[in-house]
Structures are given as structure tokens and as C-alpha cells.
């Protein structure tokens, strides 16, 4: 079983598929996430690929403070993802609510709704910071190995 576990961890680290979900962001973080995937920064060299459905994704990349409208949908998308799953909060709003903290329609950061594995601050988080955050997340997977933790 050790061997199987090792292979699974290896596969998980070498090809993390991501799903990008805008939870109420201003688009700035979203375009920086896309910029990180395009030639200059090329996140794809780590095996990261953008997918269209939560059922194919290992990592949920969220940007923006969670609005009341999106809260239920975010939970639903999170539940549709297969285990083990990881959530990355990109941008200050996703980390803590940012400038929108305290607005009547904003719940706060992503962690007020679902568990988060990595926080990438910045307004907007630059592609370099996003790459750094993703690399750190992958590193942590290697260390933790496969403990089957939820987040």
C-alpha cells in the first residue's frame, strides 16, 4: 500500500487541476489568475490546468469576498469536488473581506464559509504571488503526504 500511496501523492502534486470560481471579486484577481496561466508566467509548467467543472478539480481557486448570493453556491461547488480537496483564497478580499469587509451583502473572507488551505494576499494578488502560493501548497502536500485530511 505504501507504493500506491506514493504514486497517488506524486500524481496529485504533478498535476493539480484547478477550478476558478469568482465569489464576488472585482475581476482584478480573476485576470491575474488567468495571467498566471498564460505564457509570461505559465503556471502550466507545474501541471496546473484550468478545468470547467468542480468534479474534475483538485484545487478550488476562489477570488473575492463571499457575497450572500454566492454563499450557497460556493458550498455546493465545494461539496461537488472529489476528496481530497484544497481551497486557495486569492486576493485580500478572499482572505479577509478586504475593502468590502462590513458591507451589508458581504459575508467576509472565504474561510467564513469553507475551509481554506492557502491564502494569497494582495490587491490584486500578482501572478508571481499566485505562483508562489500554489508552489507552497504543492510543497505542503508533499510533506503531509496523503493523510486524507479534508482541507
Amino acid at each position, binding site marked *: 500500500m505504501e507504493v500506491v500511496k506514493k504514486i497517488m501523492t506524486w500524481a496529485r502534486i504533478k498535476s493539480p487541476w484547478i477550478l476558478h470560481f*469568482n465569489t464576488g471579486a472585482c475581476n482584478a484577481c480573476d*485576470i491575474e489568475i488567468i*495571467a498566471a496561466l*498564460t505564457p509570461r508566467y505559465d503556471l502550466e509548467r507545474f501541471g496546473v490546468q484550468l478545468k470547467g467543472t468542480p468534479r474534475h478539480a483538485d484545487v478550488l481557486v476562489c477570488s473575492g469576498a463571499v457575497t450572500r448570493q*454566492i454563499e450557497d*453556491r460556493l458550498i455546493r*461547488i465545494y461539496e461537488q469536488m472529489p476528496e481530497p480537496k484544497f481551497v486557495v483564497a486569492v486576493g485580500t478580499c478572499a482572505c479577509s473581506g478586504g475593502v*468590502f469587509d462590513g458591507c451589508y*451583502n458581504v459575508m467576509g473572507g472565504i474561510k467564513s464559509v469553507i475551509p481554506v488551505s492557502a491564502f494569497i494576499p494582495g490587491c490584486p494578488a500578482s501572478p508571481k504571488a499566485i505562483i508562489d502560493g500554489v508552489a507552497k501548497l504543492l510543497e505542503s502536500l508533499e510533506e503531509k503526504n496523503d493523510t486524507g485530511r479534508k482541507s
Partner: protein
Amino acid sequence: MREEEKFKIPIGPQHPALKEPENFSLALKGEKIMGVEIRLGYNHRGIEKAAEARTYVQDVYLLERVCGICSHAHSTCFVQAVEEIAGAQVPKRALYIRTLIAELERIHSHLLWLGVAGHEIGFDTLLMYTWRDREIVMDILALLTGNRVNYGINTLGGVRRDINKEEIETINNGVDILEERTKYYIEVATQETTIIKRLSGVGILSREDALELDAVGPTARASGVKRDIRHDDPYAAYAEIDFNVITDDHSDVYGRTVVRVKELMEAYKIVRQCLKDMPDGPITVKVPRKIPVGEAISRYEAPRGEDVHFVKSNGTEYPERVKVRAPTLANLRAVKHMLKDRFLADMPIVVAAIDPCFSCTDRLISVENNGSRDKQFLTWEALRNYSIEWHRDKGIDFTELNKNFRKRLGSI
């Protein structure tokens, strides 16, 4: 047609074709779209209310975050309105720097759009090409303002950063490279058979419809409506700048692509002029923290179309009301029209063709009756009639004026 013959398909809030959380509910018959319902509000954060709780200076940065792509548009629009109320005379150099950043932002936004449009029609090579070239203008913006997006260069009464000679040289070099690349994109957009075949005749919006449905920006200009706030109601330094308003009469997604790539060339021209004609002098004047009582409307041609901000002040440090009308909201009615009786497969590109920005759009209007807590929602027609009556009570009759206005609209 009977209701049961239609098949309803929901698209969004999370969908690969949409980059932002919105819901389109399409009624289909076979492959054809019979009806469209757009549900907004997933991105509603309550910015207008939040603006009332913050000072004017804080609001400049808050309103910049209405939208991350046209952030300079929103902050400039707000700043212009406040400066008008305060009666501040913004120095010329500051106006030129605002214009410069505005055009650089337009370049980045249009290149971004070109890539997204390519992606929506399955032409990912174009996405990778344009986004690679877009990094050049992002570098320039980062050099000038210190941030790639959400520049934070505006302040009440001017701008926060000056530009120097070396920076001007870097901008000129960058613009030269981009111009070369854009010539290639114009070639691709106008000669590549795949693009022409895929985009021609998709999302048709005739000139009459564009006027009727109040389309703005490149969407209207691609239908032959010559409407550009930079030209019609110049703000910042646009009055002194010589540029062409690009129009096209294809009236479809192809026309919108052509308008945007040609606007890129105009943007390079404006950037060069700004750098050449930029006067010396201070970059900011002092604006009091407390803005005198008054109200103002400010208009701005964002990359997506006309952006309108309304600011009402009550003599304190905090605005009494801030209202934002973003260009995408004006274009959504046109989208509904463009989707009808068209194929489902065209839906992503038709929606993408107006360059939608839903984070700009999600505003809320509700009217509360005095005393009672039930909310009242007015239809557009009722609101219009209400405004006509209200003005008539004050002794102003707009009926005649409206007729003339309609006539003038027809002659544009």
C-alpha cells in the same frame, strides 16, 4: 408557442463559458434560443452603501474596486464628479497623466478582450498571443503607478505620481512593440477565414436596435452609432487630443472585434500625443476634506462604454449618495435582443462580445415608501412617467424636449 415545447437550460452562476457568476436562463427549442432571462446580483457587494460610510478620499480607492479591469475608469469618474462639486481646478499635467493611464488601460482591456473572444470561439492560440503581449502594457502600468491592476493613481485634485523622462522612453518603446503586434492582429481579425466565418452574422444588433436599446461603447459603435464620450463630452485632456471615433457597420460580433482592434491603434496614437504634449507644472491641487453641498454627474468612456457616476454631497467629509451606472448594465438589454432566435452555441461569444463586467453591473435599486417598510419597485416606464410628472410640477415640461432629442438621436 406552448410552454412545454421549450426546454429550459440554466447557464451559471458557475459555468466554464462565464468568467463571472451570473445566471442566464435560456428557453430552447431545438438548438434555437427562444427566450433569455438574465439574473444578476451574485456579485452585488453593496459598494454604493459602503461609499456613504467612507470619506471622499477613501471612496476613491473603494470605487476603484468596483471593477478590476476598468478600475481607472471608475476612480476617474468619481473623482471628476467630486472635483466638480468642490470647484477644484485640476492642473493640466494631472489631466494628461489621467488620459495617459486611461488609454493604457484601454489597451490592456482590449487586448484582454481579444484573447477572451479567441478563447470563446476555441481559438486559444490567440488568447496566448494577446495575453503575452498584454504583459508589455501591464509592465508599463506597473512602472507608472506601482500596481498592475487597481492603479490608485487618482486622488482628489489630481494624480499621485508624476512621470519622468526615462519612463516616457519606456512607454514609447513598449507602444512601438505593441503597435507592431496590433497590426498583426488586425490582419488576423480581418483576413483569417476561421474568425470571419465564426463571427460574421453572429449576435446581430442593427443600428436602430442599438439606439433603441441604449447600447454603449464598442457594441454601439460596431452598429454604426458614432457615440464616444471622449469625443462628445470631452473630459480630462481629450478636448486637446486629436483622435478618430472608430465605427463599423457590420453590426455583429465581427464588427465589434474590428472596432476594438482599430481602437487599439487609436489608443497608441493618443498615448504618443499625451507624452508629446504633456505640459510641465504641478500634478495636484488641494481639495478640502469637507466637500460643499451639491451634486454632480460625471461621464467617462470606459473601455466597455459610457460609465456614469452621480455624487451628492451634504457638506461633510462623507458623500450622501454615490450612484454608479456601469457600461455593461446598459448593454445587457442588447444582449437579450442579440441572443433571441439565435443558436445556443453562439451564446458564449455573443455574451463575451459586449465585454461584460458583472462586478460593475450588480447594483440594487429599491424605493421605500415613507414610514412603511415595504419596498416598491418601479418599472422603467413608471419611473420615466414619474420623472416627467415631477418636473411638470416644478414648472418644466420635458415632453417637447424629449421629442427633439429623439429626432436628434435618429440623425446621428
